[in-house]
């Protein structure tokens, strides 16, 4: 393992973020004291199974948690500004300029009744009002070209594009104002594997050329391995491990991360399936102690009594597990 202190500044910091969903049957804790940061120019993956809260975290960063959800605690720093304290107006001015989104599900992210040029133009004009018509058109055409789309897309409606093209339009739109941070929420889900690769590479290409930092939400570990620099693993609303992608894949520390890595079906060798079983808890009543205790093969009384904090055990590598901690200490 490389022990090198990373001095690259942090462009996005999520501090102690909690999001609750208030339902008639009690509050669901969708995100619980989530802490992580994104360094300038890196791609960080946020992974976990469905319902683990990864999309909630993305929405919270964008300050777009929908009712009945609510950010109950925490701070979100983007490029030196704390978002939770901003007024609606200040937030609006900051959105897209500093924080853009490549949305999930390429199918419905574009308004079906507006042409591509109108939707891209809207994003640009909202922040650069005085832009001339010709300049705007030039900008949009350039952006389309940047993501490998032909110029005729400019005049087209979303339903005339394929899924991959729509998602590339979304990428073009996200980079329109050259934001320092892009949140990509499962940007390639529901796309066929070849198209997925094309879209993923478009993202990588854009990132390389613009130096933008990216938070990539996902559940496909293969895709994460291909794209990200660091991975944050989330389980039932809690971060359990955050670390460099090589470390996570080669030597996963948290038992849940190990489980995730082991269950990836390989395309390189045919091997026996590893089957694990375990209960998940009711999200309304998280157990005291470690959130993963019901499925963990190494669970001890210590795990049942108190929740392990997310602690840095190597530079940029954090784990929330008593066993890992004591192993390191020994």
């Amino acid at each position, binding site marked *: 393992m490389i022990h090198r202190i990373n001095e690259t500044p942090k462009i996005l910091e999520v501090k102690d973020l909690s999001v609750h969903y208030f339902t008639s049957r009690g509050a669901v804790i969708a995100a619980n004291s989530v802490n992580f940061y994104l360094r300038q120019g890196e791609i960080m993956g946020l992974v976990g199974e469905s319902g683990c809260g990864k999309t909630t975290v993305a929405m919270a960063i964008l300050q*777009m948690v929908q009712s009945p959800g609510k950010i109950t605690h925490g701070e979100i720093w983007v490029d030196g500004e704390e978002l939770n304290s901003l007024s609606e107006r200040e937030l609006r001015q900051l959105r897209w300029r500093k924080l853009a989104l490549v949305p999930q599900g390429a199918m419905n992210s574009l*308004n079906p009744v507006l042409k591509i040029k109108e939707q891209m133009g809207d994003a640009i004009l909202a922040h650069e009002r005085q832009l001339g018509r010709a300049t705007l058109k030039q900008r949009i055409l350039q952006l389309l070209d940047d993501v490998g789309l032909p110029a005729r897309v400019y005049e087209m409606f979303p339903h005339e594009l394929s899924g991959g093209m729509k998602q590339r339009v979304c990428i073009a739109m996200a980079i329109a104002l050259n934001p320092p941070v892009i949140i990509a929420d499962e940007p390639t889900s529901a796309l066929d594997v070849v198209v997925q690769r094309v879209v993923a590479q478009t993202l990588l290409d854009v990132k390389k050329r613009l130096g933008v930092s990216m938070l990539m939400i996902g559940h496909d570990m293969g895709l994460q391995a291909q794209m990200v620099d660091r991975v944050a693993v989330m389980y039932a609303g809690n971060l359990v491990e955050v670390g460099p992608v090589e470390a996570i894949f080669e030597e996963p520390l948290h038992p849940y991360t190990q489980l995730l890595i082991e269950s990836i079906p390989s395309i390189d060798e045919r091997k026996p399936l590893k089957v694990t079983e375990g209960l998940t808890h009711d999200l309304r009543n998280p157990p005291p102690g470690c959130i993963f205790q019901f499925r963990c093969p190494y669970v001890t009384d210590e795990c049942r009594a108190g929740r392990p904090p997310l602690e840095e055990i190597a530079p940029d590598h954090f784990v929330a597990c008593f066993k890992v901690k004591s192993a390191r200490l020994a």
Partner: protein
Amino acid sequence: MGGLTKQYVLTRFFMFVLTIWIGATAVFLIPRLAPGDPVTSMVMRMTEREGRVENAQELIAAWKERFGLNDPLYIQYFRYLGNLVRFDFGYSLANFPTTAWEMVRPALPWSVRLLAVALIFSFAIGNTVGALMGWRKTPSWLQNILPLSLTFTSIPYFMFGILLLYFIAFQLHLLPASGGYSRDVTPGWNLPYIRSVITYSILPLVSIVLTSMGGWALGMRGLMVGVNNEDYFLLAQAKGLSPARVFFRYGVRNAILPSLTALALGMGGLISGSMLVEYIFAYPGTGYTLYRAIITQDYTVMQTICNLMILITATSVFLLDLLYPLIDPRITFRRSQM
């Protein structure tokens, strides 16, 4: 591509013709399916009302002859359709030498004007209210006030009309109670006349608008709530657009589309309902003419009005259908472009 394709226009035109045909056929056929024939039952009705009709049998025979009711049904039917196409509705029964068309024609502009204005108002107000009700960002004081506009939604137009008539016209004497314009003015392009026409139309208009806008509002609210959860709506917010722009371009713009389809469907109901309103306010439109025809047993005038109403509905639906693809680019989108 968006826009009108030949296929689409042809299909819509087919629907237009079909609607008129079904309506006209129902008007022709159903009275004849009932036991007895129209003329006999009409005379019987007269007997019921007036106690006794002189020479009832001869009257029936004469009328049957005049209407060709002795011919086989299918001949009557084709003659009826043929006349309909030529806009020949026959003579008025109550005012013999006058044709039914001449009886109805003066009433048409009144009805069409009232309907058009009522429709524009209720559609515009209703959808605005509904869109605001369904939008998450609407200020809460407004959210609390808006539902008040739904108060009269479930009440039929004419019943609300009666209440307005009683309280506003008869009790408070604020507005005239009946007719299309004051007897003191001379019809024509003069200001007093126009002012009078407007004054006299306020109550009928208000009864239609207040009772029908709630329907639009409810429909629009539902659609807007749906749009609120669409990915593109969320993305528009994430883009940092102003709330007004998000509301109109990414909310109303999309939610209004199904409302337009409902507009087509609502035409028939609106026309039906406004006929009773005209009767209540003795407004000189087709509804009132229809009522007079009912009183005078004027069968042909009734049929004429009915067919005209069907024609008006079908035409407005057809025009709306032609307009629709220009608003929604997906509507004539062909499978080959998938």
